[in-house]
């Protein structure tokens, strides 16, 4: 039951707006108004009387739909079952009340990294967060520090660019001569990089870091972790390692990290990000001292 349906779409004002002249835009507007009206109707539809319900407040924004151009929060009442996640609640709200409610999701099991959201003031995966563990009202917002495309969908482009800036691929100095031979790796070394390989590119860490928020050029914890994953892999030779260190110790690399630890705290895959960043700082200092 959305409490924040805007009182009156400001029709007159919009009509004078030259951009809205086309038939397409008029259509969009009319449909939006109708859906808004309908939502109030259908919101009452399911009878949740007597059922255990929870209230979720969801951030709404759409640059194209007049009534959503001004961001707002919509409230939805969802029936609650044990085991229900924030993602389940969102899907219920979408399928029952308002099919224009938009968010990314796919795997429902914390491996695809699509649904990092800002839930009750912290970055989490919707599918990995039990509704029952949260205090009401449950506020669901898009990840902070990223531009909102629509509702809970943020623009991930910058995050991807940062990830790709660290040469995120294995690049050994040389391969075994025999094509079918494996490159040996000790168990200890695999153990060392194990946690770093678990990243699912969800962007939660980047969103929680104040330095990344203040300085868009900062590589960010996930990208640095990616560099760590390869730099610390003993199968990659020392030449490539030096190259990698050069990338991450540039102006906006590891030195920007001020050990705030929020990245480590929010990472849904429990990757010790700060530890990895610090380890790379030490590697970089070592590398630099060599040339002195």
């Amino acid at each position, binding site marked *: 039951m959305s409490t924040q349906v805007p009182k009156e779409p400001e029709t007159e004002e919009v009509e004078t707006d030259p951009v809205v002249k086309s038939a397409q835009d008029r259509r969009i507007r009319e449909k939006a108004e109708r859906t808004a009206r309908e939502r109030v109707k259908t919101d009452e539809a399911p009878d949740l009387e007597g059922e255990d319900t929870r209230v979720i407040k969801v951030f709404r924004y759409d640059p194209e739909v007049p009534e959503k151009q001004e961001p707002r929060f919509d409230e939805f009442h969802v029936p609650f079952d044990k085991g229900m996640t924030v993602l389940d609640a969102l899907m219920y709200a979408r399928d029952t009340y308002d099919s224009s409610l938009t968010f990314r999701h796919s795997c429902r099991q914390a491996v695809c990294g699509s649904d990092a959201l800002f839930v009750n003031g912290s970055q989490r995966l919707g599918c990995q967060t039990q509704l029952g563990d949260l205090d009401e009202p449950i506020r669901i917002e898009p990840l902070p520090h990223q531009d909102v495309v629509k509702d809970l969908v943020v623009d991930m482009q910058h995050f991807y660019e940062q990830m790709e800036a660290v040469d995120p691929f294995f690049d050994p100095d040389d391969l075994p001569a025999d094509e079918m031979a494996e490159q040996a790796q000790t168990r200890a070394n695999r153990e060392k990089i194990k946690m770093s390989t678990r990243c699912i590119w969800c962007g939660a860490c980047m969103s929680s870091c104040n330095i990344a928020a203040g300085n868009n050029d900062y590589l960010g914890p996930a990208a640095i972790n990616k560099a760590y994953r390869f730099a610390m892999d003993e199968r990659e030779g020392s030449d490539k390692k030096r190259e990698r260190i050069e990338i991450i110790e540039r102006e906006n690399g590891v030195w920007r990290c001020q050990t705030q630890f929020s990245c480590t705290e929010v990472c849904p895959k429990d990757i010790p990000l700060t530890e990895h960043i610090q*380890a790379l700082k030490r590697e970089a200092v070592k590398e630099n001292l060599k040339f002195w």
Partner: protein
Amino acid sequence: MSQSFNRGLVEDFGRWREFSAGMWAWVFHKFTGWVLVGYLFTHIAVLSTALSGPAAYTNTITTLEGLLVVRVLEVGLLAVAVFHMLNGSRLLLVDLGVGLERQDVSFYASLILTGAIVVASVPTFMAGVSL
């Protein structure tokens, strides 16, 4: 056709809600660091009255030290300095990869220790001040 929305304040406030140990440590460390630089400049300025001769110096110092405000400020400075030192040591350890899992605990420890040291030093700092 697509455009994005920058949330401005919405997200600025959002950020504050999520503050945790590591964040507070960072903010405090920043604050104390800046206070200390500020003090360093003031300190040298005051001391350099010595350039105008022994009497001027002794005079300035005793007048200043005789004031309650200055003493109180000095205690504040002690707090700031002690926190910066303790948290600084914490950061040095973190840089060496020591105690990363216990970083929140070591932050709270720095806070408590700062408090204890400051309280313990109050008599010494206040000694001889005429109220």
